[in-house]
């Protein structure tokens, strides 16, 4: 396994002033005994609400935070012990931070990466050309970073993380604040990177479309604990998600009754909304409604993954 996380925890000591000279020490478990493995070439989504422990996990995987307990290996290396050695093999993009030199043209930051990671000249040239082409950075290389738009800067940051051919790329919110087109560009690039180069990708995001479009596997973390690890499709079952059948009837009628097959969640004039389990076929339900009610039109809405996850978070919070 390329990334091995076994019972890892991170506890922060938080001191709070409770009175004159009096302080209370409190321990916060940002990550509470998490275990998972990621194989080489996998593309995994890592999601959870704010403060769930996602960034803390990423920081431990880069070696800038030392775990309080458990065992952690990336490419066989203990990150916090051999941070510098590991640094040559990983790429990191923190969406809300930048590695680029604010006042200087983009190309200057890349030249610095060239030296910092001791990239052989021909590899540097090749990787830079490739990133410039795929991330459309051609006209931006001579522009000072402070003048770039957020989307341009993000693409610039992603390129900076890839010049040294990292085996794994950690992306922490790479599409945050980007418009639809910029998001699409970033996703397309990541798909190609993973497909062609086999780069392992661990993607943290709040944008579930990132996950839906890129990752076959998703891990959900909440309050420092792993609440789901598996295929994206399975998330619907795990979250007990429902599809919605929207029917337009000829006239206003009392709520449709189809037994346990579905339940009406909303009525608005002649239009009614019926919820049924996401795992079941809509055909039987549609046939039954069509046979018993004066049906004009209908549509099926796919389950909203955001709603599923929101419910998952909420359940954990009350549990």
């Amino acid at each position, binding site marked *: 396994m390329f990334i091995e996380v076994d019972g890892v925890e991170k506890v922060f000591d938080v001191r709070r002033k409770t009175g004159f000279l009096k302080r209370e020490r409190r321990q916060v478990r940002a990550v509470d005994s998490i275990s998972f493995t990621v194989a080489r070439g996998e593309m995994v989504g890592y999601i959870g609400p704010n403060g769930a422990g*996602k960034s803390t996990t990423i920081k431990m995987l880069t070696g800038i*935070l030392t775990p309080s307990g458990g065992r952690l290996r990336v490419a066989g290396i203990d990150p916090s012990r051999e941070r*510098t050695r590991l*640094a040559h093999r990983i790429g*990191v993009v*923190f969406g809300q931070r930048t*590695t680029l030199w604010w006042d200087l043209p983009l190309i*200057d930051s890349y030249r*610095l990466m060239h030296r910092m990671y001791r990239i052989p000249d021909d590899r540097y040239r090749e990787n830079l050309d490739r990133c410039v082409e795929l991330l459309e950075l051609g006209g931006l290389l001579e522009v000072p970073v402070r003048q770039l738009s957020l989307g341009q800067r993000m693409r610039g940051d992603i390129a900076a993380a890839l010049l040294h051919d990292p085996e794994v790329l950690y992306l922490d919110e790479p599409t945050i604040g980007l418009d639809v087109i910029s998001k699409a560009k970033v996703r397309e690039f990541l798909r190609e990177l993973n497909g062609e180069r086999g780069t392992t990708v661990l993607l943290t995001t709040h944008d579930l479309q990132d996950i839906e479009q890129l990752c076959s596997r998703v891990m959900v973390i909440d309050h420092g604990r792993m609440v789901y690890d598996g295929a994206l499709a399975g998330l619907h079952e795990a979250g007990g998600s429902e599809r919605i059948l929207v029917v337009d009837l000829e006239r206003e009628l009392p709520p449709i009754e189809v037994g346990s097959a579905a339940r009406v969640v909303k009525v608005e004039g002649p239009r009614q909304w019926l919820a049924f389990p996401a795992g079941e076929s809509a055909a039987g339900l549609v046939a039954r409604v069509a046979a018993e009610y004066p049906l004009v039109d209908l549509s099926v809405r796919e389950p909203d993954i955001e709603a599923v996850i929101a419910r998952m978070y909420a359940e954990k919070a009350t549990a």
Partner: protein
Amino acid sequence: MGSGRLYAAVAAGGFRRYATYRAATAAGVFTNTVFGIILVYTYLALWDERPHLGGYDQTQAVTYAWLGQALYSTLAIQGGGAEKDLMARIRTGEIAVDLYRPADLQLWWLASDLGRAVFQMLGRGVIPFTFGALFFSMALPQDITTWVAFLVAVALAMIVSFGIRYLAALMMFWLMDDRGVTQTMMILGIFCSGMTLPLNAFPDPFGDIVQSLPWAAQLQMPANVLMGEVSPWHAYAFQAGWAVVLLAAGRLLQSAATRRVVVQGG
């Protein structure tokens, strides 16, 4: 020498960052020139009353005043060098980015600050100093050896200056706000470097004390080397001693900070 090239590139970047802001440089040159004139006339009035104060004659006092203006931003005597960026990065959590890089944090910031210092010397140092030399009578050496010795002292002063400010910046790992540290460093910097008066003008034992502090390595030592008041080797020993102590302390504090302290922000 792979890492040598890296830090050379970082220094070059530090230089260019400051070179980008031409209007700021022009404003700085103007400010240092005006302050130079004010300070020179103040010193002239003072040395008129107290000739040979601190062992300087009037031309030496004038030279010292202009040198102070020339080195003011070069050595970031009042603060405002690379440590300002570092403080901001620690406060916002941007420091996380610096920490996962395969580079040494202290050397990185030292290189960046030296690049800045060299730019400030050429950009904001040379012009006010030349202005002073043209319009006032100054005690400047005639031989090239003394000038070279002076430049070496300035280079060492840059390292000491960074050493002090790096320690101050690392305090941000434990503090939430930089104002206290920044203000303290500013007052200590201006006074103990001898920006208000040359340190040798203060009566002993106070004069002895301030002249043995690391700030004395910044302005006083290069000035004494330039005017032949002290042997360069004596000055270098003093400066290098403090540089080693400060950089070692910075290294200790850095390892404590990165091991124990939370990187702020998600």
